[in-house]
């Protein structure tokens, strides 16, 4: 055995445990789920139906509703959150800002709360007689309580507010760390050239943050496509199906109604396909060849 092969072997042996573990706990279940997605039936009585489940997806109105809901959350919530996170991080990066640590902690704090705990609190805040309604009523902004949870439109708004509150701080941290890596001399040069603050922001900050914007929008997109805890706890997908997400539909198919694990696996793969499409799309749009 020559030295090169020996070195290779030693190298591989270091990662062999990780590889085995990943194969066992990631790839094996993935392949099993793929096989499962070609079967249908109740509980343990599964039979192969070929692409039957995938065809069923397109005629299943509930699935299409959940797809629509998920996209609505995605299209509205992700841009709002990303913009908000950039805005806040730029504010907090200001050298003259006092109590910087306090503000950063305060805005990051929601990201460390448990998903279920904060969802339950939001449910109470936005209840018919909850704090938010009470506040708006007492200040005479509204004359009747807003049906935050039982009106199809407002329920969606509530969910968007909740996830924005929970995840903005998390994304802000990425931007903050990226901002600190931008060389201050670039800004100095821009100022000498007479560029306004806004100009500096659009022509220096944004382009230099691009990789991070790409990263956060991909992770946020994936997170939103998998949205589950919030809707499950705040609205239970209601009223009707108006806030039900794809992940919640998978849960309902498996555990709430007569279980059809095969079809649930198919819906899971639909999410996988969507995530792949979106990630590719975002890479292309960002124009990076990496």
């Amino acid at each position, binding site marked *: 055995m020559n030295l090169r092969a020996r070195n290779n072997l030693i190298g591989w042996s270091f990662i062999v445990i990780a590889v085995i573990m990943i194969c066992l706990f990631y790839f094996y279940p993935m392949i099993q789920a793929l096989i499962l997605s070609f079967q249908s039936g109740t509980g*343990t009585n599964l039979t192969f139906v070929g692409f039957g489940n995938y065809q069923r997806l397109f005629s299943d109105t509930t699935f299409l509703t959940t797809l629509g809901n998920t996209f609505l959350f995605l299209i509205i919530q992700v841009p709002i959150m990303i913009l908000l996170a950039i805005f806040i991080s730029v504010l907090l990066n200001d050298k003259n800002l006092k109590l910087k640590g306090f503000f950063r902690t305060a805005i990051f704090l929601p990201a460390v709360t448990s998903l279920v705990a904060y969802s339950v609190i939001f449910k109470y805040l936005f209840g018919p007689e909850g704090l938010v309604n009470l506040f708006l009523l007492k200040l005479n902004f509204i004359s009747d309580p807003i049906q935050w949870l039982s009106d199809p439109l407002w329920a969606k708004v509530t969910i968007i507010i909740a996830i924005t509150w929970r995840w903005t701080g998390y994304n802000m941290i990425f931007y903050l760390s990226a901002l600190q890596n931008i060389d201050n001399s670039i800004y100095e040069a821009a100022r000498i050239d007479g560029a306004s603050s806004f100009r500096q922001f659009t022509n220096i900050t944004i382009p230099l943050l691009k990789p991070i914007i790409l990263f956060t929008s991909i992770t946020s997109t994936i997170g939103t496509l998998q949205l589950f805890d919030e809707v499950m706890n705040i609205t239970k997908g209601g009223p009707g199906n108006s806030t039900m997400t794809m992940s919640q539909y998978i849960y309902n198919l498996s555990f709430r*109604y*007569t*279980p059809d694990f095969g079809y649930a696996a198919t819906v899971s793969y639909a999410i996988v396909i969507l995530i792949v499409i979106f990630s590719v799309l975002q890479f292309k749009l960002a124009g990076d060849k990496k």
Partner: protein
Amino acid sequence: MKKMLALLLASMVLLSACSSAATNKTGNESETNGDGKEKITIWAWDPKFNIAALNIAKDAYKAENPNLTVDIIENAQNDIVQKLNTGMSSGTTKGLPNIVLIEDYRAQSFLQAYPDSFFPVTDYIQTSEFADYKLGPTSFEGKNYGVPFDSGVTGLYVRTDYLEQAGYTPADMQDINWDQFIEIGKKVKEATGKDWLTMDPTDLGILRIMIQSAGSWYLKEDGRTANLQDNPVLKEAFETYKKIVDANIARTHSDWSQMVANFNNGSTAAVVSGNWFTPSIMAATDQAGKWAIVPLPKLTNNANSIHASSLGGSSWYVLNVPGKEAAAEFLGKTFGANADMYQKLVADVGAIGSFKPAAEGEGYKAPNEFFGGQHIVSDFAKWTAEIPKVNYGLHTYAIEDTILVVEMQNYLNGKNIDQVLSDAQKQADAQIK
């Protein structure tokens, strides 16, 4: 090279140790100790009702078999459903109980999805001693898997003092239909300013009550095909529901505690519900003597509709895990045979089973002072015997939650009823397999 081999071997040993540790643990909840003592585990929900009933059964069984330890664990119903689905589909029986309570609407879904996971109790009970309508949901392929319990029999609970202000007495309500029910509701609201009903727009329980009273269901006899389009009973139930909403006599609630609060603070005058609602009504002790329970209204234009129906009844099931004989024996000797125990059940818990011989006992004939001395238990027992038998099938909640709740809103917003039901049918046919 040797080092690498050693590393590989070590990792192999580690892995196999992990897997063997996992398989070794697939022991069971039920263990027989050396001294012949046996232990069974039971899952149920609702501490005031089902758990309380179990505790009475446990005490009653001590005389029969002191060697059996009964461990009762309270879980929310949704958690039980989820845990059963996870446990049974994984193929391991570890962590599952010996006995579990399952709602009748869901029973077939479990029995048919996991046919080998349940243990038939046919040999441990006399099925003829139970109310007929309970036997359909609890049996599969000719075998009985469930010991029928909570009858879920419905009645109309009314505030007699509010009725009087509107010029009615409970005697006027013994044989009414839903149209008359709505008329009375309007009068009561006029006279007292109190709402007649309280409803949750996402829970169509009242619809289920109406259609079962006429022997119909969301699903056809086979339990698999949706029965929505051209179902005259469901159509009338939808129309009745809309009449109630349009009459403006119902307030809305979004969860159980709000609903109970609406009665306990006196702002609602009537409720149509299963007999398990009695403890919640009686929680407002200051309203003692102001309530009565009258028979369920029947559908106005349907000759088959009667004054009896059921809402959310449940039954006990034995899982096919070690200890099943002891568990079945326990159920057979208590809920399946002990008429005296049922007297204690109605007296202490207000739980009305579906065990027919129990109706002869003293406890069933006793008057209830909270309800103005009405013999509520014997009334409920009488209605229980009349409940029409329907096949709840596999998809009751799937149809209701994902389709009917949405279509009901469309209907209330002005969509044509035939269109509503035919759209619902189309969706159900596409979704339910």
